[in-house]
């Protein structure tokens, strides 16, 4: 089972929910796909970690062999190649590493080199297997790192909990691509509702089974009304609780504390019921 935890708005509780669910689930996997600002490792403090770099292929043009036919610059959908003053120039930040320019070059003037764009840290926290991706500073897209992360958990016979990036952009789409179930986290505010609508529209396009967790619950029914109107199942409500917030902001996994563990056990049981 693969559960993606996502929310339109940042700071809503994706990491809170995904860390605690993976902590409580037996023999599970936690994957931090929020590669721009990963914070799962603040909770899962790993002792022994393995690290590996994530590379993408970037074209290099041999100017001696190039005859200036411009087939590569015309082929590139992302305008990563431009023919300037009789030379093909590569803009590596725009390159999506499709390899097309190399294929269309009639002169075989294009080769590729590995560009490191980030790294993946992995390890075990008790029984929970933890993966966390992190993008290098200055890189424009974390999608290749997310792809690499998901490849690692694709064939796991364990329950996988994916901590998605915020928003509803390319990196979110990538992180939910293999998910069996999408768990949306929202907070009761106008901003929270607005971004929930955006992310709800996204998961509907992907035709995913979904459930909703309301975090920082108060007596405002703004999210509940939306859920009711759209027949979204509410699988959990986390109250606005100062002590919970304090523990969480200190990097504690709140499910270790008996007064909060039932909250997340409930959510986990509801998710299991929904998926089966």
């Amino acid at each position, binding site marked *: 089972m693969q559960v993606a935890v996502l929310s339109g708005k940042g700071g809503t509780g994706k990491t809170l929910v995904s860390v605690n669910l993976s902590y409580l689930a037996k023999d599970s996997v936690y994957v931090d796909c929020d590669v721009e600002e990963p914070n799962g490792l603040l909770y899962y403090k790993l002792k022994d970690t393995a690290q590996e770099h994530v590379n993408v292929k970037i074209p290099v043009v041999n100017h001696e062999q190039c005859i200036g036919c411009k087939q590569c*610059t015309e082929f590139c959908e*992302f*305008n990563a190649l*431009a023919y*300037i*003053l009789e030379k093909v120039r590569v*803009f590596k*930040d*725009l390159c999506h590493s499709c390899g097309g320019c190399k294929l269309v070059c009639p002169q075989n003037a294009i080769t590729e080199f590995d560009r490191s764009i980030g790294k993946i840290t992995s390890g075990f926290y008790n029984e929970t297997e933890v993966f966390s991706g992190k993008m290098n500073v200055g890189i424009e897209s974390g999608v290749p790192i997310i792809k690499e992360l998901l490849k690692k958990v694709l064939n796991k016979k364990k329950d996988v909990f994916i901590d998605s990036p915020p928003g509803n952009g390319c990196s979110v789409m990538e992180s939910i691509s293999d998910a069996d179930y999408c768990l949306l986290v929202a907070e009761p505010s106008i901003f929270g509702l607005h971004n929930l609508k955006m992310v709800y529209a996204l998961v509907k396009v992907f035709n995913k089974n979904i459930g909703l967790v309301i975090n920082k619950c108060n007596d405002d029914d703004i999210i509940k009304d939306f859920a009711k109107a759209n027949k979204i199942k509410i699988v959990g409500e986390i109250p606005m609780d100062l002590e919970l917030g304090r523990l969480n902001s200190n990097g504690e996994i709140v499910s270790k504390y008996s007064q909060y563990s039932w909250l997340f056990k409930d959510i986990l049981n509801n998710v299991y019921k929904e998926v089966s």
Partner: protein
Amino acid sequence: MIIVMPTKTSGEKSFISDHFGRCNFFYVYDSELKSGEVYINENKDGQGGVGIKSAEFILNKKADVLITPRVGEKALVVLQSTDIKVFASTDQIVKDLIVSYLNGELKELY
């Protein structure tokens, strides 16, 4: 001398576009022939790197001068590797801007 401007609408009475990469048209003026031509910006709806394509376009038009409110980072990399001079546009329409430039009233942008 060839002077190029990104424009909102077509023709010499157009205002200058705020976006060098995503402008609707280019106005290409030849100061020797004292005549200008309008080109549609075919890359304006591209996903990214459209400023690079605009820079490539004006290079192909053998531009000497570009008059624009601003240039993006990537297009600037391209332009700085060439001899094209970039001047800051003012709130004038194309034909008035050309006069201003030729009178030396515009400031160099980069």
